């Protein structure tokens, strides 16, 4: 059995700015199931990146389960000097500041988020791969995720132990345990 993980810093297993692989929830999840995994997540990722990687870089049909962590819909990526570059509201840049100020609207971001979720679900389903789509965003009326990891900024999941902006090892263990329960229900 092999599991595909993609998402942002939470999936990468960041603690105080550094990834600790052995304490990340993908590692703890797969250690419990005694299975292999690929973790293609990256710090500061976007839903756009998750979709691009799923559709253009990896062959999801080679996996038995896929777990995704979506992030804020304001994040995006674009090609700069031949490399895909992440952009978010906190990065200082005159052009992208204008984007967030004059162009970006909540409805636009929410629509993109729904497109990304539908694309991920359909892609996994079309390839016969069960998937779990989670988020670090707060719960909202316009979209429903399989699991909410919570977010240290505004909606901390009371059961997830945090250390600054990210969970600590115990927090990631809780996420892994919750995901194991969801996975068990998929079988």
């Amino acid at each position, binding site marked *: 059995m092999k599991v595909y993980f993609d998402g942002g810093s939470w999936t990468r297993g960041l603690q105080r700015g550094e990834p600790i692989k052995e304490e990340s929830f993908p590692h703890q999840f797969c250690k419990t199931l005694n299975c292999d995994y690929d973790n293609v997540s990256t710090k500061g990722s976007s839903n756009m990146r998750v979709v*691009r990687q799923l559709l253009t870089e990896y062959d999801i049909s080679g996996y038995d389960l896929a777990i995704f962590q979506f992030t804020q819909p304001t994040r995006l990526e*674009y090609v700069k000097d031949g490399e895909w570059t992440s952009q978010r509201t906190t990065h200082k840049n005159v052009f992208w500041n204008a*984007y967030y100020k004059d162009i970006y*609207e909540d409805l636009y971001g929410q*629509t993109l988020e729904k*497109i990304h979720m539908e*694309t991920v679900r*359909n*892609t996994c389903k*079309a390839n016969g791969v069960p998937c779990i789509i989670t988020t670090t965003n707060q719960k909202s009326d316009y979209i429903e995720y399989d699991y909410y990891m919570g977010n240290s900024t505004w909606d901390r999941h009371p059961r997830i132990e945090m250390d600054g902006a990210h969970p600590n090892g115990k927090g990631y263990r809780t996420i892994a345990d919750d995901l194991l329960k969801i996975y068990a229900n998929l079988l």
Partner: protein
Amino acid sequence: MKFYFDGCSYTYGSELKNPEQTRFSKLLSDRYDAVEINRATHGSSNKGILRRVLLEADISQYDLVVVNLTAPSRTEYWDVNKGWTKVNVSKYVGKVENEHTQFWKYYLTNIYTEEEGNTNERVAYESIKNLCKVHNVPLIITTIRAQRMKELHRLGHTVYSPLEFDLNLGDSKYPCYERFHPTEEGHQMIASDLAKIYESLL
């Protein structure tokens, strides 16, 4: 029977005198006695097409889906005063500038890359294919990327798509008007070619 069509001006039937009666979507639907639902609009982007197909159309209720992907340099955004607003290269040539047109002009000139456009095209292509596969609805996916595509020439980008499409509506075999949209005869030929593809899917 019910057929769903989406795309840009080629699918809408731009330049035709009576598009609702003479465009290929109507001709193909009539051939199979199907109800024609055509959501294509002039200037649509692949992002807009994907949004409509994925979120607005209930694909599961159709017997055939025909989607035409368009110039990858086009995009769209939500304008609180105007709704979904189309962005393409030719749209801003000679236009009076405001903060939005200034932004998009800069984006298309300095930020947008061919790789980004091709990636977005592939995302739309794969996403629509997977959607139709999940709902077990036959899909014909077409392109207009051909030599006559001015938008891509202006950017100095490759006109042909690296993806494999079922049909190229920009093929020079289809007679076209001054602005390169198919004539009535062109639409008849496209409908005939689509019918052959549809029957091969059954």
